[in-house]
């Protein structure tokens, strides 16, 4: 007879809602602020697997806090240049034909710090105002058909139900194309921080346009030049003019392993990996450099590749223990090549602030520590 094993204790019982393992700690990153209701929190990109961002880790950008909205009470009002203005309940919106699609969402101000001399020390700090979800909703086109756009209707003025009544002007082309009135995210209703119960989704365009807690669409013949499309989210050029309605997010990528803040335990074989995305459609290829940009090789792209969604890339890497400078660059289906920081600055100067999509360099030291290349 063998010796009795130590008695094992039972695990936790069934439950109605599952928390993640106590050993999993990844969190969004925020900054100290006197106004924590207005600011952003960044997705821990280096902790992500595959292409879907867990809803609880989707980046946030709020301008007046996250409202608590009873979906029974919520209404969307469409009015202005329409044949028939409409007030819709959530139940009515959810009665209409729905679609689900995977799409990335990126803040127009993501990587804003990368324009300067001191760049983000981690993938999260450098690029974390980008996330990717499966979204479910009604094509906005169907609701506009139901209302009937009048001739000359060219813009939608979208308004949120947050305290600041966030307002942006959306070109009607977007609404007639891929735009959704989204109420679902990753298999469940939107999280409050993502606009519960209803948000606008315009895949490939900057996050701020995709108004959360959507309560009103005013149909007009002109943009309303709102505060958040003139004073903010516009790109100031060296000549003092600011580009406006720079809505599409150009192709971008970042290596998430190895990336800043991590440490390689020793020489040997690793799987380098990262994320790429483009507001113009599919990622066609991703190239990786291991020598600071002198040479580039193609990474393997994980299928399925989806337009305007995160694409995961991988590359087997035999690290020889010597210092290395690594980076990725994305090429999208239009042939657009993700530029270097110097090329961006040459074209736009140092004052534009938004829409930085430059190549992000990491340096691996001989001791295996990884940092941003300018650290």
């Amino acid at each position, binding site marked *: 007879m063998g010796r009795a094993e130590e008695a094992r204790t039972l695990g936790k019982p069934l439950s109605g809602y599952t928390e993640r393992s106590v050993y999993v700690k990844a969190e969004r990153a925020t900054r100290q602020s*006197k106004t924590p209701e207005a600011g952003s929190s960044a997705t821990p990109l280096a902790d992500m697997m595959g292409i879907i961002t867990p809803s609880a880790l989707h980046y946030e950008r709020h301008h007046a806090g996250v409202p608590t909205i009873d979906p029974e009470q919520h209404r969307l*009002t469409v009015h202005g240049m329409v044949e028939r203005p409409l007030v819709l309940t959530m139940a009515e919106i959810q009665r209409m034909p729905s679609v689900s699609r995977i799409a990335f969402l990126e803040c127009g101000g993501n990587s804003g710090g990368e324009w300067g001399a001191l760049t983000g020390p981690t993938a999260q700090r450098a690029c974390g105002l980008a996330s990717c979800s499966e979204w479910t909703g009604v094509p906005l086109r169907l609701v506009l058909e139901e209302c009937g756009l009048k001739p000359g209707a060219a813009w939608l003025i979208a308004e949120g139900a947050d305290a600041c*009544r966030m307002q942006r002007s959306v070109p009607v082309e977007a609404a007639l194309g891929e735009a959704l009135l989204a109420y679902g995210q990753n298999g469940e209703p939107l999280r409050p921080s993502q606009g519960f119960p209803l948000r606008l989704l315009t895949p490939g365009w900057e996050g701020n346009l995709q108004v959360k807690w959507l309560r009103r669409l005013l149909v007009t013949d002109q943009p309303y030049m709102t505060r958040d499309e003139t004073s903010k989210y516009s790109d100031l050029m060296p000549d003092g003019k600011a580009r406006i309605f720079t809505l599409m997010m150009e192709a971008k990528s970042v290596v998430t392993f190895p990336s800043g803040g991590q440490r390689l335990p020793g020489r040997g074989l690793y799987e380098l990996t990262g994320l790429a995305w483009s507001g113009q459609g599919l990622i066609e290829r991703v190239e990786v450099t291991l020598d600071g940009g002198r040479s580039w090789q193609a990474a393997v792209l994980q299928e399925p590749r989806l337009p305007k969604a995160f694409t995961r890339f991988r590359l087997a890497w035999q690290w020889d223990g010597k210092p290395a400078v690594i980076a990725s660059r994305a090429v999208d289906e239009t042939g657009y090549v993700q*530029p270097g920081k110097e090329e961006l600055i*040459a074209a736009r100067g140092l004052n534009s602030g938004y829409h930085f999509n430059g190549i992000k360099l990491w340096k691996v030291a001989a001791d295996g520590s990884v940092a941003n290349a300018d650290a």
Partner: protein
Amino acid sequence: MRTLSVALVFALGLCAQTSRYGVGRVPGAEEIRGLGPTVAPDGTGLPEGSATAVEGRELFAQKCAKCHGEKAEGDVGPALVGGQGTLATPKPRKTVGSFWPHAPVVWDYVHRAMPFNQPGVLSHREVYAVVAYVLFLNGIIGEKDVMDAKSLGKVRMPNRDGFVPDPRPDVKSK
């Protein structure tokens, strides 16, 4: 693209003569007004009310100065004055006076989003007053100029022509 979208809009206009899904109901004018004003850059949509910078001075001290500074020079909240002539320099200062292109949009933003911790607390007249005061501090209007739905749309902002369309792709990759 423009031709295409105009054609699509026209087509939608035609097919929308009848409701397809029969969802929703038609709101009354009063119900739409209840959602609050929407303001076009030329001032269309501005509500009734009027005020001058003189009336705005004390209100600004009470409701705005805590975050924006006594003279709107900026504190926790951004500066609202100054910066004219800095946009093309290495240290641009973007303020209402130097950057915002349309005065009615200042009214719209203050009305919908300010004060930060209590948006909606100001009456329409009070919004005219603080907007007049901020425009006055920027040297754009006189202290006794009456701002209302008509006059605010006629205010010429210094950076009125400072915005240009998106020219991207604009970056040459190596």
